[in-house]
């Protein structure tokens, strides 16, 4: 009888170890699916918002830089915040690209050196930022098209 209890007990031990791993796997899968759904829903809107931010730079930079400087700085801050959020929703090369833009922007815009620049030099830096944003948006567009093609197949 005691042997029987011992067998049952060891089976229960194995089952609890097994269910522990199953729970871990389910939690991992749930997190992955949640992240995937979240990025599928949020990503198009974030890309549209970043596109809108990027599109406002030519108009602002086309006018008098000093008159528009406050609006330009606000737009840079908005774009940076959007890049920070985007970074958490993508993986691989795209995340590296976003990170590169964020690091490059920190080095070029918003530093003491930038503050001491002439309006023309500042404007040139922001044009570089605009070009980088457009490059990233093009990559994001290609990625989302590839996803759509994948989904259609």
């Amino acid at each position, binding site marked *: 009888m005691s042997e029987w209890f011992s067998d049952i007990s060891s089976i229960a031990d194995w089952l609890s170890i097994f269910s522990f791993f199953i729970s871990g796997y389910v939690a991992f899968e749930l997190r992955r699916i949640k992240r995937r759904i979240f990025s599928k829903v949020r990503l198009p809107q974030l890309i549209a918002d970043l596109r809108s931010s990027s599109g406002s730079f*030519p108009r602002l930079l086309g006018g008098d830089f000093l008159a528009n400087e406050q609006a330009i700085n606000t737009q840079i801050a908005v774009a940076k915040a959007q890049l920070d959020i985007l970074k958490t929703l993508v993986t691989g090369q795209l995340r590296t690209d976003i990170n590169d833009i964020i690091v490059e922007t920190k080095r070029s815009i918003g530093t003491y050196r930038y503050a001491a620049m002439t309006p023309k030099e500042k404007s040139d830096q922001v044009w570089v930022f605009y070009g980088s944003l*457009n*490059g990233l948006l093009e990559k994001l567009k290609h990625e989302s098209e590839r996803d759509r093609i994948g989904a259609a197949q």
Partner: protein
Amino acid sequence: MNEFEKNVKFVSKLVELSQKGELEWKPSDAPDEFSSTSFITEVGGQPIRVYTFARQVPASPSSIFSSFSLDNENSRTITIYGDVIDIMDARHRVLYSFRDVTGTHDLFESASRSAANVDRLIEAVLSA
């Protein structure tokens, strides 16, 4: 730098040059019935044209477009919007087209603003 990165840099630079007033855009006829008024400039003697289009096409589940909208709930067509930059020869024959490269719509707006002399017009009205 791969090809599409070069294309984006090219378009972004055209936007920058247009906004700095280094490219002079002139209005021109729409290339076809689906397109807007186009705008033409020259870079190094090479004519460049930019325009937007809106075209209706039959809707199909496998249609893959960069931007579109359903015309209405029961509609079987969708409207595709796009922006095009044409590189042309001296006789204005299209040699190459950039379609929907990011920044092309910004270029269209810059060209339109430049061709219409909007800034001068605004200043004239405000100073009157």
